[in-house]
């Protein structure tokens, strides 16, 4: 599903190239649950952003679903966002002016999904994440864990084939973090959604079936979890 070949990324600063990623080559198949780990500043977020096409690599090629997407025009990229990719952020990034319901609805509106279909999907998600009672609340009226649930629900609304999550539990207590991880695992196993997450926690990484260890922009280890 994802094929990275010799991906490099550097920031030029006063003529000096500061490499963040070096010759990253890897393949991620449909249905995998990959955790990216490594020390702070290693380039994990950068890698995830490249996979999510939020950033472009300075070198190398990137194929998504067999299509070269190394540098993509905006229209195509939006197309992918609408149909294939769901983002989950560490800081949740819900839209403050929208209720829970509307936050989940937003991607469906961009995707131009009919109103009855929309309603049923949202009802489904609210139900599944046990947040039906919260649907008319605004993000600042929710706990962190609840906000992250909404964030995930929003990512799932468009029925993406892959979820990219950068430290989705970074701001949460362990109990809430576990709940989110269980949810990811379930989504991965039952719905077959590909998940790539960045995490600092060895424990969270164990929920997945593969771990990429990165240090200084280089993939040091690629382990399959039993």
């Amino acid at each position: 599903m994802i094929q990275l070949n010799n991906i490099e990324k550097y920031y030029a600063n006063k003529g000096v190239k500061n490499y963040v990623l070096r010759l990253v080559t890897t393949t991620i198949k449909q249905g995998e649950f990959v955790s990216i780990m490594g020390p702070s500043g290693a380039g994990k977020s950068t890698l995830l952003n490249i996979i999510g096409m939020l950033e472009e690599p300075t070198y190398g090629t990137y194929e998504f679903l067999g299509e070269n997407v190394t540098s993509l025009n905006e229209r195509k990229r939006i197309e992918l966002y609408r149909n294939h990719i769901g983002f989950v952020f560490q800081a949740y990034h819900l839209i403050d002016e929208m209720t829970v319901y509307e936050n989940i609805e937003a991607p469906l509106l961009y995707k131009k999904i009919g109103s009855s279909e929309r309603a049923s999907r949202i009802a489904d998600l609210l139900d599944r994440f046990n947040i039906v009672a919260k649907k008319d609340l605004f993000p600042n009226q929710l706990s962190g864990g609840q906000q992250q649930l909404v964030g995930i629900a929003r990512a799932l609304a468009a029925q993406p084939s892959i979820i990219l999550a950068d430290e989705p539990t970074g701001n949460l207590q362990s109990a809430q973090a576990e709940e989110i991880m269980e949810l990811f695992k379930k989504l991965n196993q039952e719905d077959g959604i590909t998940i790539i997450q960045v995490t600092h926690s060895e424990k969270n990484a164990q929920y997945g079936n593969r771990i990429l260890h990165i240090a200084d922009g280089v993939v040091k280890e690629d382990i399959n979890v039993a």
Partner: protein
Amino acid sequence: MYRLNLKIALRNLWRNKGFTLINLGGLAIGLASCMILLLYVAYEYGYDKQFTDYDKTYVLYNNQKTASETFSFMAFPGRLKDEIRDKVPGVAKVSRLSYAEQMLISYNHNNFKKNAVFSDPDFIKMFDYKVLNGNKNTMLNSVDGVVLTETLAKNLFGNEDPLNKTVKLDEKENLRVEGVIEDSPKNSTIQLDYIMSWKLYDKLNPWTKDSGWGNNYCMMFLQLQDNSFFDRANNVLKGTIKSHDKEANGEPFMHPLSKWHLYDKFENGKNVGGKIDQLRIFFLLAFCILLIACVNFMNLSTAKSEKRAREVGVRKAIGSSRSNLLGQFMFESILLTALSMLLAFVLIEVSLPYFNNLLGITLEVNYSDYKFWTVFLGLTLLTAFIAGSYPAFYLSSFDPVKVLKGFKISGGSTLSIRKFLVIFQFVFAACLIVCTAVIYQQLNYIKNKPIGYNRANLVQISTEGEFSKKEKREILKDELLKSGAITAATEYSLSLTSGGNNTYGVNWPGKNEKDKILVNFRFTNLDLTKTTGMEILQGRDFSKDFVDTASVIVNEALVKVMGMKDPVGKMITWDQPLRIIGVLKDYVMESPYQKAAPLLIAQNTNRASTIIMRLNDKSNITSSINKINEEIKKLNPSYPTEIRFVDDNFERKFRDEKLLGTLSNWFGGFAIFISCLGLLGLALFMAEQRKKEISIRKVLGASTANILTLLNKDFIKLVAIANLIAFPLAYIIINKWLSGYEYRISISVLPFIVAISLSVIIAILTVSVQSVKVAKANPVDALKYE
């Protein structure tokens, strides 16, 4: 999508009530100001355009060349009409028109003094007033015909049918009502209440019969079959007078009716604009105010960008395209503008009566007019677009990854744009302050400039009816003097404050025969200087101790033109030899804006048209006026005579300037107010942004005063820069305006000092409202969240 956008936009507005209020208020005031000014401009622009073929109709001007310059005025010999009819190609209609004059019209015991004109039958076809009663084709054909306006007909006849009834003009002439037309539109230059035939004019003024080609006494209008004749017609017109009388010095030319009102200034025979210049200023002002309000909106919207950047990032990551976002932001701007428009309407409806009263005009919103709605919608969309476009493009351009990575939107560049916007606003505000101050100074200067006589407590009445008899006037004067209501009285051949009555026929020793020099003439009685307070510089006033039938008083300007030394005792000729007995200090006749014109005054009570009286300043004015009224009623019972204060007449001369002053005061004030709102918004934003910095500084030991200085310094710098940019600009503009006046103040530093101090004070006050709050806040609150 749109429903959600609407909901979110409304929520956004509601959440940020402060910003919303500032934005809404600013836009509403801007829009209301713009609309009122546009209404005014449309009103002035619509002058004389009510008539069907107004674009083919022309008013004639007469160019009179003298040695030094060319005068253009609207006066012609009456016989020119037939000449035009016969000789000028392409003429469809032509008519003479007398200058409107208040004349007495009566039916039974209903007497009214109303604006009367005399004209040829073509007039009523050229100016196609709606005929409410009667046959248009036969109107004004017979000597005794009269056409009334609706209001006058109602006043005279009530519910009776006026057609073919007999009314009386000036108690003498019996006239037959030939028809009733609608009232003159408010914005029509010709204001009349009834029209009589030119034949009657000739009958009442028998001298017109043998009056030559050099004698100009009526206006002339013509309508072309179509405008392709214009050049040919104008060419022929030019020579019409001279072909009959080589000595006569007039060259008629056509001036479009539609330009009569706004392009009324002629220099050296060419049109040089007129009121249109002032109108252009207002038009510009209208849009500048709107622009300021738009700038406010941009400023405040981008100031909120930090808050919204995250939203933009998230939306992009979940599949929003840039055009989705553009649409959303534009939609918010349209929504806010529409709300402001509603508010603006309330403001307009509330303030229009006030402005109408102030300006002496009748502006109104014509809700049934599609043109109004077009402009209205256009203006709303334009405003929404101008105000919304920059924020929309700016906000929607955010790169999601930067935003989501938590990079701060670099405050630097957007802040400098906002600073630029504030400077822009204050440049405009400072310009307005300077201009308003200079206009005020100039107006005051002209108003307080000595006019050559004492106009306070001076009243005039016209010599009508019984007062056209010398003896009756004497009785009136004697009675009033005896009663103590007045202290002096004299007679004059024209109103003290009006122009006109001039001649080229004055000669003096050493005058170049070829020079045509226009000299104004007046006739008076005894006590001119005593009554008016005019000043004799040399020689004496007319006196009952002398026989003054062949004596004249001249003014300084005439002495200068004649180049005479010691003029008293010297002779000049005007049909007959006249001895100069006195030199009068120049006094303002028609225009307080222009230098005095040459004038001679002779004594002849038969030519009196006005009685001038000085009220006794020892007694109560009201009772004096009552006394005068009483006496007038007794002596001249059938004429409703109006007592006019010279002061009021004089005040009317300042109408245009006062209007300019008032409008620039008001709308300048609005512009400044809106700019302040913008500043307040920026201050709100800056304080928000620097909360953390301020808190740290406070923890490090800065006092509230330190922090206030810190915050205010930046704003004062902005305002100061704005002033520096504004000064040369304002100087150029106002200098150009002033150059239109012969008498003008020199521009002093005072307006500039006023501008800079006013804007700085306003800025400090505005900013301090916000910064005091921040400076006093507990630093813990801000630091806790980081």
